[in-house]
């Protein structure tokens, strides 16, 4: 197997890595770069725990090969807060207790941010559809949806 050299940008930082042809972006992030925020849930694109953005588009990193990322801009949960300052979504998730075990949370936050970036005033139905690719097996969805709606309202006021 020949290793592939990839130059990319992750959370704004130029990043280079070497990976095998069959490694997913999720494998690369977690095992080679130490970015363990994206989680492996199902590995089949159903649970959304591995959500990242690639060139601004929400994607499951388990469904992408690391080798495909040459020249791409990747956004992960590690880039969401600015230093110690949490993103409004992160604050609201804590405020609303929109998590229990936390495995799904990075994926929900990335997906919710992607929604609010495109639609600052979503309806509850829009939030639920936008987050349908993220599964939570403990909290359920109500608190998550409320946290996202509340964040949207607060960000509009700001």
């Amino acid at each position, binding site marked *: *197997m*020949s290793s*592939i050299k990839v130059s990319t940008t992750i959370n704004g930082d130029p990043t280079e890595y070497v990976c*095998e*042809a*069959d490694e*997913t972006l999720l494998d690369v992030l977690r095992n080679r770069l130490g970015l363990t925020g994206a989680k492996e849930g199902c*590995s*089949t*694109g*159903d649970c*959304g725990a591995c*959500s990242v953005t*690639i060139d601004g*588009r*929400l*994607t*499951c990193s*388990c*469904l*992408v*090969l690391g*080798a*495909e990322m*040459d020249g791409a801009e990747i956004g992960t949960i590690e880039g969401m807060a600015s230093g110690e300052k949490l993103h409004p979504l992160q604050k609201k998730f804590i405020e609303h207790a929109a998590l229990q075990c936390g495995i799904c949370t990075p994926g929900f936050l990335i*997906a919710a941010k*992607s*929604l609010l970036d495109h639609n600052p005033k979503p309806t509850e139905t829009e939030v639920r*559809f*936008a987050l*349908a*690719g*993220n599964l939570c097996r403990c909290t359920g969805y109500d608190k998550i949806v409320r946290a996202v709606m509340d964040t949207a309202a607060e960000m509009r006021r700001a």
Partner: protein
Amino acid sequence: MRYERPTTLQAASQLLAKEKGSAYVLAGGTDLLVRLRTGFIEPDLIVDIKRIASTRTIAKTATGFKIGAAVSGAELGENAALKKAWPGVVEAANLIGSKQVQGRATMTGNLCNASPAADSVPALVAAAAKVVIAGPKGKRTIPVEQVPVGPGKTSLKKGEIIEAILLPKRPARSGDAYLRFIPRTEMDIAVVGVGVSLTLDAKGIVTAARVSLGAVAPTVLLVPAAAKAIIGTKLDAKALDALAAAASAACKPIDDKRGTKDYRIKVAGVLAKRAAKIAQQRAGGK
């Protein structure tokens, strides 16, 4: 496994043609990666076609639209001109999977995955879409319905790649629609899917129509008898009943965990009526 990322169709075609082991084309990867990771396939070669410029664009041409094979569902949904001309095709493609999947999944991949339940395929068949295939002997163009030949099987030969899907130009007063039945609100596989495309005359009479069914046979079906049932009518109750009967009669479904044969046959008729009414409204009729 080797990973190659050619920048021309010729190079991609040559890589696939020369490979002695198993070779797969990668565009969105939302089906391929699942099969790869679950060990269902063990490729010797993956050919990523996303660096081939013509696979990445939606072009409005003199004869309609040319949609590159690597264009994602999200990109389709953001193209206002395409949505206006072919709302049924775009809504069908956008029903596939989650937002995450939409960010990557392509209609060409949906077609080449050759699932009988593929959501975008009945809409493409109803739309009389064609595909441009590039291969070792040059390019050829065939109707979409000739690509899948059975579950998971296509008519593409070794070394051939679909470059783009062609959608024809719309005559005035035309509309299309795709409806599927699933037991949930989304993130599910069609129990039955129906695509309808039609054109009306100034009086609201259907002058041309195509009806296509998904998930009721080994491949997506084009049902000329269902189209015939509504051509020359204003989609009155009698015509709609005839449409439903023709759609149901064309079904050759199986019983599985998603639905029984009888249920699929019944639902195909019901959805055909509803999709035809939506297409009629979109064409400006009543």
